[in-house]
């Protein structure tokens, strides 16, 4: 990690996975009752569903997001660790 990246702008240069995590937080997907489908997340973030699925899977593997199935549809929301990771940007 070079000096120039130490204090980079979190709005302009974040990897898409982190950007997605932030967006999920800011649009309110922070608990199971507020979880969102891929379609809803895609509408908010303007990311294509296949790309979204890859990023969401990685976020789930790292413990920052979780999913559950409701009426045959997968829905996603952040875990508490995911929320804390996002809030660390702003505190």
């Amino acid at each position: 990690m070079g000096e120039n990246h130490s204090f980079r702008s979190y709005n302009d240069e974040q990897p898409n996975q982190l950007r997605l995590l932030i967006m999920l937080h800011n649009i309110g997907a922070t608990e199971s009752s507020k979880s969102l489908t891929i379609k809803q997340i895609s509408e908010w973030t303007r990311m294509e569903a296949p790309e979204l699925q890859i990023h969401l899977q990685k976020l789930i593997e790292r413990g920052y997001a979780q999913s559950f199935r409701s009426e045959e549809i997968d829905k996603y929301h952040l875990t508490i660790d995911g929320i804390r990771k996002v809030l660390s940007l702003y505190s």
Partner: protein
Amino acid sequence: MKVGTLTWEFPPRVVGGIARHCEGLAKALVQQNHEVHLFTLDFPGSPSYEEMDGVKVYRASTELGHPNFLTWVLLFNHFLTKRMADVVHSVDFDVMHVHDWLAAFSGISFKHYLKKPMVLTVHSTEVGRAQGLHSPDSFSINGIEWWAMYEADRVIVCSQSMKNEICDHFNLPWDKVDVIPNAIDATKYQTFVDRGSVRQRYGVGYGEKLILCVGRLVPQKGIEYFIRAIPNIAKRYPEAKFIIIGEGWSRDILEAEARASGQNRKIQFTGFASDQEVINLMTSADVLVVPSVYEPFGIVALEGMATGVPVVASQVGGLSEVIEHDRTGLFVFPRSPESIVWGIDRVLSDPDHAKWLTENAKEKLHKAYSWEAVAMKTVEVYRKVVE
């Protein structure tokens, strides 16, 4: 006095030092017979209202969202305002106390609506956190910070270095700002900790050194410089283990740095840990490293001092005021892995000196940093604006 406190962070919504500060201050104010109504944001599993040691805590649910951070902040401020509006008809507040710019919109609204004075505590600044203003959002946040300080009747900061920073950067009148340091609840650190058991849980064997770093995983905490110091520490102390506690947006980058160090098997990232687990690890560690490059106060150094672990910290910001070099801890140069190696070696190579440092640190801590004292000084500020 009846105090309306606004903060975006309050336990269990703990991100950085603001939550701990608000908790310590609010509880100490209640103990001194003041009435504290605290308005904050919801968190999964937390009730919308509860009393915590006499502090009345109201949590606002943010019912609308937006991908843009600043828009989201404006939205949650609306819901914070709405939550507060339910209460102001039945409580005649003497003063509104806002913590940082994030809750400023709501606080300023009520200042004007209720015609009550507003006190603002500035915990850090955008220009400090980001080490410059590099994006439109940063410029906007910087402007909101200025606005909040302008609207506030008085401004509180936690260190002289923060006073210098905000007076210089925002052209704030020197006599509008009060310095009230942070504190810790010393009783939390007086519990028995089975060091052997804690070390075993983290795979630190008998006779091995445990080197600890605690902080949000964000660039301002300087953890990358600690990781860069690890190969040279490991050369001198091959049995050392390194534990990094905290969560944050730069975790992936720091984990990659750890992998590249060639010492990855000796480095553990624990993620967020509870207060008790932080105490357990601090009490069990041989040295606590605080490698921050920007630190308005550095409450983690106080926590380390309270547990009796020797503290090696960057000489920046509030840390320069918390620690006395080579008396209550050791200073190292910020952004310098070589200097961090020196500090850790100084502590590990001379256990008698390390013990002396920790004894001095504990003595200073008990005299200077109690929530009771912080609450009394804060009430003095409230009195200035109420009168």
